[in-house]
């Protein structure tokens, strides 16, 4: 990030570029539909980055302590050699190099790009190749670099064997440097050596020796880390967890083994063929004799237009890719095209080089690119892109095996996995995933030193997004969904860890087996196509059978086919046949009789061709028909399934309806019960009310009864009183009259207890007498008179008493 800012600050205004996109922390454009999600993840990235930095720091410190030899011994030695070499080169180089080294020793950030840019303008006008554009990586990473470099060599050793057989014997200088030779492609080796011996023999021998010494040094140390597997394992874990941005550029170089690959001056010489014309030409002559590639004289310029077109189309608007940045990009791409003319320039390299330039100095970026393209992606970006096609077939095998359901669905929709994954592989996910994820995939890929991570990442993406994909209804939707889901894979840790953990068993050896299985088919179809159209191919095949040429017809045809394909096509097959027959005539010219035979054969050939063509068409038709039938069959199966499902649904509906009916019935019953309950409740309430009323009435009656009984009691008291008074009166009377005193009193008492019929009269008589006396208690006479009148008053008195009760 510092590099980006530093570089941006040093720049002239960039060409007119629309800046309406937002950019991420690396300066790359973020698509508008992803802005929101990017912002959500930005903080997480920051936290992860901090954690990562700590972990790496810790690791590197422990590294320093545990392996002091690897770090202190070798690099000191090495840098001495280096400055030796470079001091003869240019003084400016040397000083800035020292500056860079000092900076790294202090643990400063790798600001090399901005440093380069400050220097670039002055120097680039005159001698571009003299600009200091190389820096060693910090010493704390040396142990890692050594381990990785040794690995790179082994890979190269194996790989170069078949190639070296085709090449000329190596020069004596080459033989003096066995270590070096192993790390580079033989063709390049020769290239450097010739250049060297041509331009500055003394210096070159010196540097060759130095490199030799360096290499043996590397080798002796390289065995050390390998005997420490835990160390490597920990490193692997760290890499899978991500490389800190601050170290990324340098670690990538360490992984690719840039220092071991680098040959001094090679890059500058590639860039300045004009100044070194002599050496260039001899080199090219040599090359031509060997590989018989006649066009290669004009080759370097063949890529120029192509590269030029793509310069402004590489991360357009990126703040670090201004005029100087793009000049550097042009130099790297041109240098690579000249370094490996059999590959030259291929679109995609512009993005790779652009990314590397953002992370490291120019020459470092060049060597990293060389490592990636020549080793990791050998055969990928060449004219035929053979390995790229092979890899897609291998991937299809793997996807088919791991996600059979998904592939079935895609097959049904008519989607080929390779449509989408082809570009993923070719770009190494650049512009296909969010940048954080791209960088994390690159971390692992460069560390592993092969293309396994390409496969694992795709498998992880399929695992993440397969479930969504199987819900799509047509090919367009499936592809759109997959593209956009991949484009929003912001959770880079999830992606990388899924890839590395869940698909651990996807290994290079297995991939190699699968590649070997598929390669012949791809090669065959490439050859077929290179022979032009179908008819053309047919005629050729038959012709070679009919006239067994001594000359290989294929080579003749291929040679003329490429540049003039269109003409041949328009002229039609007859002209091809004519040209063939001319070839044939050359062979059999002396024998005139044969001419007739040739004509006959030509006719025969035409017939055969026509037959074959119609047979082919028929085959195609049948194939299409078969496809349609398969589709129909699928459809039929599906519709059967749909029917079945529909039936099930109907059944379920029926059950549901029944249930509903039952429910209704239950509800009705429930309602009735409820009603009844209400009625009884009402009745109960009425009864209660009734009971209350009755209770009240009873109470009233009780009260009345009590009152009455109280009154009765009083009456009785009075009656007793009256009787006692009466008795007393009677006694008094008897005392006065003498006749029968006691029998009377006895009679009166009796009448009070039982109501014998004869008593009332007496009683009434008594009462009325008592009352009369009350009325006039003191008048004894009137009482007496009343006694005499008693029969009349008895009735009225009796009545009165009854009423009272």
């Amino acid at each position, binding site marked *: 990030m510092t590099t980006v800012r530093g570089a941006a600050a040093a720049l002239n205004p960039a060409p007119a570029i629309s800046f309406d996109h937002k950019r991420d922390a690396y300066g790359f454009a973020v698509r508008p539909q992803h802005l929101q999600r990017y912002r959500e993840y930005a903080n997480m990235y920051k936290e992860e980055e901090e954690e990562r930095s700590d972990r790496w720091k810790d690791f590197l410190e422990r590294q320093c302590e545990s392996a002091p030899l690897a770090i202190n011994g070798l690099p000191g030695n090495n840098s001495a050699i280096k400055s030796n070499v470079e001091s003869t080169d240019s003084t400016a180089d040397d000083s800035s190099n020292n500056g860079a080294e000092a900076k790294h020793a202090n643990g400063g950030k790798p600001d090399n790009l901005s440093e380069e840019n400050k220097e670039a303008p002055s120097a680039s006008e005159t001698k571009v190749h003299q600009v200091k554009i190389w820096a060693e990586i910090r010493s704390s990473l040396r142990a890692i670099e050594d381990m990785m470099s040794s690995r790179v060599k082994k890979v190269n050793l194996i790989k170069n064997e078949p190639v070296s057989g085709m090449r000329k014997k190596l020069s004596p200088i080459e033989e003096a440097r066995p270590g070096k030779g192993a790390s580079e492609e033989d063709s390049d080796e020769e290239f450097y050596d010739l250049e060297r011996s041509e331009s500055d023999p003394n210096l070159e021998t010196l540097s060759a020796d130095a490199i030799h010494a360096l290499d043996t040094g590397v080798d002796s140390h390289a065995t050390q880390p390998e005997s420490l597997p835990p160390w490597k394992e920990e490193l692997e874990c760290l890499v899978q967890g991500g490389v800190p941005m601050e170290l990324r550029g340098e670690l990538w170089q360490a992984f690719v083994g840039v220092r071991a690959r680098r040959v001094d001056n090679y890059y500058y010489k590639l860039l300045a063929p004009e100044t070194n014309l002599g050496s260039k030409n001899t080199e090219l002559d040599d090359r031509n004799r060997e590989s018989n590639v006649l066009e290669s004289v004009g080759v370097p310029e063949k890529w120029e237009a192509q590269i030029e077109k793509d310069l402004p189309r590489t991360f357009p608007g990126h703040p670090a890719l201004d005029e100087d940045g793009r000049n550097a990009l042009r130099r790297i791409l041109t240098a690579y095209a000249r370094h490996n003319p059999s590959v030259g320039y291929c679109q995609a390299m512009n993005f790779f080089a652009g990314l590397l330039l953002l992370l490291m100095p120019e020459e470092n970026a060049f060597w990293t690119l060389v490592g990636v393209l020549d080793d990791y992606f050998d055969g990928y970006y060449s004219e035929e892109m053979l390995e790229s096609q092979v890899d897609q077939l291998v991937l299809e095998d793997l996807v088919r095996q791991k996600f059979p359901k998904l592939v079935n669905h895609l097959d049904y929709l008519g989607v080929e996995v390779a449509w989408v994954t082809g570009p993923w592989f070719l770009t190494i996910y650049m512009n296909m995933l969010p940048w954080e994820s791209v960088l994390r995939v690159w971390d692992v890929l460069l560390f592993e030193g092969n293309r396994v991570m390409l496969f694992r990442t795709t498998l992880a993406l399929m695992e993440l997004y397969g479930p969504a994909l199987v819900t799509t209804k047509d090919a367009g939707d499936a592809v759109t969904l997959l593209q956009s889901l991949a484009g929003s894979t912001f959770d880079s840790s999830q992606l990388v860890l899924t890839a590395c953990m869940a698909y651990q068993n996807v290994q290079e050896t297995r991939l190699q087996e699968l590649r070997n299985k598929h390669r012949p088919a791809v090669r065959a179809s490439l050859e077929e196509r290179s022979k032009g159209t179908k008819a053309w191919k047919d005629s050729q095949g038959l012709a070679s059978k009919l006239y067994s040429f001594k000359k290989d017809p294929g080579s003749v045809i291929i040679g003329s086919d490429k540049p003039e394909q269109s003409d041949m096509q328009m002229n039609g097959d007859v002209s091809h046949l004519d040209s063939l027959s001319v070839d044939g005539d050359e062979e059999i010219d002396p024998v005139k009789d044969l001419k007739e035979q040739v004509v006959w054969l030509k006719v025969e050939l035409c017939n055969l061709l026509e037959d074959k063509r119609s047979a082919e068409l028929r085959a195609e038709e049948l194939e299409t*028909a078969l496809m349609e039938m398969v589709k129909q069959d699928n459809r039929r199966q599906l519709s059967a399934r749909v029917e079945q499902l529909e039936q099930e649904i109907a059944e379920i509906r029926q059950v549901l309806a029944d249930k509903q009916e039952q429910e209704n019935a239950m509800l009705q019953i429930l309602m009735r019960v409820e009603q009844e309950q209400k009625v009884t409740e009402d009745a109960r309430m009425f009864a209660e009310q009734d009971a209350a009323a009755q209770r009240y009435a009873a109470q009233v009656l009780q009260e009345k009864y009590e009152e009455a009984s109280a009154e009765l009691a009083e009456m009785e008291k009075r009656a007793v009183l009256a009787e006692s008074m009466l008795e007393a009166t009677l006694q008094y009377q008897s005392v006065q009259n003498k006749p029968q005193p006691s029998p009377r009193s006895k009679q009166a008492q009796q009448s009070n207890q039982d109501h014998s019929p004869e008593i009332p009269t007496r009683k009434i008589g008594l009462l009325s007498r008592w009352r009369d006396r009350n009325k006039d208690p003191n008048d004894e006479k009137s009482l007496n008179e009343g006694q005499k009148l008693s029969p009349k008053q008895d009735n009225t008195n009796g009545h009165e008493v009854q009423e009272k009760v």
Partner: protein
Amino acid sequence: MASSGNKNINAKLVLLGDVGAGKSSLVLRFVKGQFVEFQESTIGAAFFSQTVAVNDATVKFEIWDTAGQERYHSLAPMYYRGAAAAIIVYDISNQASFDRAKKWVQELQAQGNPNMVMALAGNKSDLLDARKVESEEAQTYAQENGLFFLETSAKTAANVNEIFYEIAKRLPRLQQTPNPSGMVLVDRPAERANTASCCS
């Protein structure tokens, strides 16, 4: 393949043409209505989709924008195989791109789906001063080869929608009553006369 269901058609369309002819720019204009001065180079291929309505039917284009560089040619068949339509793009200010377009036409005639609707687009028609390919020449070529031709400009949007609409209208399923399964087989023998012109 164009496939139909009740006047909704899905049609696979592929764009072919030289580097920088403006394939991606044309698609971007058609799909998003945008144009950028510096469009990133296409690596491999890119997919887009867009739906248009023609004659009360809708056509959903499944568009494959391919890479222009010669060597990516080897990947092209994967994308044009089974395509219902193709737009072959050249840059009117670049003769080489026109030559390249002709090669694509030949390849499609030989290898592509015989029912394929092909359009020739002379792009960057806004760059009149830099014109290298005369429109008469292209028109003649197109007529001879059974293509229809339009000069387009992704920059000004001239004829961009038109070329896609014209393709939509010409899709076989739109002109005839839909006949999903038998179609291909029925059509093939008729086509044979055109393609199998060998040795006559």
